[in-house]
């Protein structure tokens, strides 16, 4: 097995996904099959090969730190599921 149910449970927490026990079981099977397939990358000798992080040779473009547009706050808040004026309202963090 490439991935265990405990791994899946842990990754689901990292990914902020609530999976049912049935989904975790099904996910374990499916991810195991995909990870087994992906193993074929290990057949390649990549020692000394530079990783490609980005396919085009680009340098980070820079600009002056100057405000050039000020969208109305209302436009940005309009899709808020819960708001308090121009603040997004969320449940409290429970330890």
């Amino acid at each position, binding site marked *: 097995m490439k*991935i265990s149910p405990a*791994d*899946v449970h842990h*990754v*689901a*927490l*990292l*990914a*902020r*996904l*609530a*999976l049912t026990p049935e*989904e975790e079981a099904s*996910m374990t099977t*499916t*991810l195991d*099959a*995909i*990870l087994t*397939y*992906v193993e*074929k*990358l*290990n*057949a*390649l000798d*990549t020692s000394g*090969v*530079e*990783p*490609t*992080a*980005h*396919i*085009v040779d*680009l340098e*980070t*473009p820079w*600009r002056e730190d100057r405000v050039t547009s000020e*969208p109305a706050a209302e*436009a*940005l808040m*309009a*899709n*808020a*599921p*819960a708001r308090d004026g121009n603040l*997004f309202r*969320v*449940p*409290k*963090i*429970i330890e």
Partner: protein
Amino acid sequence: MTPAPHDITIVEAAARLRAGSLTAEALTEAALARIAATDGTLGSFITVTADAARAAARAADRALRTGTAASPLAGIPVAVKDVIATAGVQTTAGSRILEGFVPPYDATVAARLKAAGAVIVGKANCDEFAMGSSNENSAYGPARNPWDPTRVPGGSSGGSATAVAGGQALASLGTDTGGSIRLPASYCGLVGMKPTYGRVSRYGVVAYASSLDQVGPFARTVRDCALVLGTIAGHDPRDSTSVDRPVPAFDAALAAGAAGLRIGVPREYFTDGMQPDVEGAVRAAVDTLAGAGAAVREVSLPHSEYAVACYYVLATAEASSNLARYDGVRYGIRRAGDEGLLAMYRKTRAAGFGAEVKRRIMLGTYALSAGYYDAYYLKAQKVRTLIRRDFDRAFADVDVLATPVAPTTAFRLGEKTADPLQMYLVDVFTNPASLAGLPAIVVPCGRDAAGLPIGLQIVGPPFGEEAVLRAAQAFEDATDWHRARPPELGGRA
């Protein structure tokens, strides 16, 4: 008489609009009527923007009458994939998690279409967050292939393809991360193009895999495709990955013809398990190009078989990061309760994301997690280098590559949904050019025994859109496949 949208190209419509024998209003009404009559079956659209389209059409007619409509896209009905932000119009990315989300701004590509006077008739259906090869992963229902509605149109830009192939629009925008324009173009008998990475702005495009995503056109002809590409391409300061290179006049490249063009055919792309008539049609297409004067030779891209594995590590890793923003805080749906913030994130995402999206987030998160990053993500980045080098070596000797698009023609709805890996393997011929960031076009090149379209892929070197378009035009000039229509639009089976 107003032509049906599938009976006229952008070039023809632009001429008639300027000659006064056609109005944008009439052409738009024809498109909207066609959508109303057929979209129950085709499922091309998540949102139809009839009123806005009519207003845009009237504006285009005014510009045409006063001679101020500079772009050939003025007054042309087009569809835009629902991962592309349109100000004031619902943009869902095919997901429940963004149901009702209305962007306050236009994506750059949408703004450029509007500035050209194009008439956006609606937001096209797609696999959720552009993840899929069949448009069966949309939370808003599947799109269906106009050539046979029991079959998929391909994905993830399925609705963008069915809108054009089904006669509902003259062109559309899709996105292509691992093949999501090229595959539907092949399955639906259209021209579809993924530009070089960085050629077209991604500002306002819902991100799936940021190092792979590109916006591109669907159209009926190579020239129409070049016109749309020319309209949306070019540097955008708002997209830090958009390249500051001048955009050539793509239509000028079309006339060069195939004489002297050097075409490479990668031997690794003709695999076991290919549908025989697909292989036959693609090889015949290469012969047609040879007959038109191209010099054809076999080449080798030895790392081709690793592209699917490489793609599904990198794309899912990038997706797991990009989709972290869908958390119920600022936009989209929310599933709160009284268990606090973390529970809200987990329940919101569980309720809002479909199964395939969850799978890819999980896979990507795992590949990036402590202890696994080197084995999976870093390894895949190195394999990406090897895949790119294969292409660089090939392009030292040839101008373009000619390949199949997919191992088969359009499969039936439900045929590949039981095994995600089977679905991923559909991308075998499209993933490589994505990983290498190369321009690639698909043109229709045949039909199988069941009458289903077969596509030919032409891949070029970085920023080599002109060579790709030249080859595609030469092929179109020598054949009639682009004139074919599905039986229900009056074509022969």
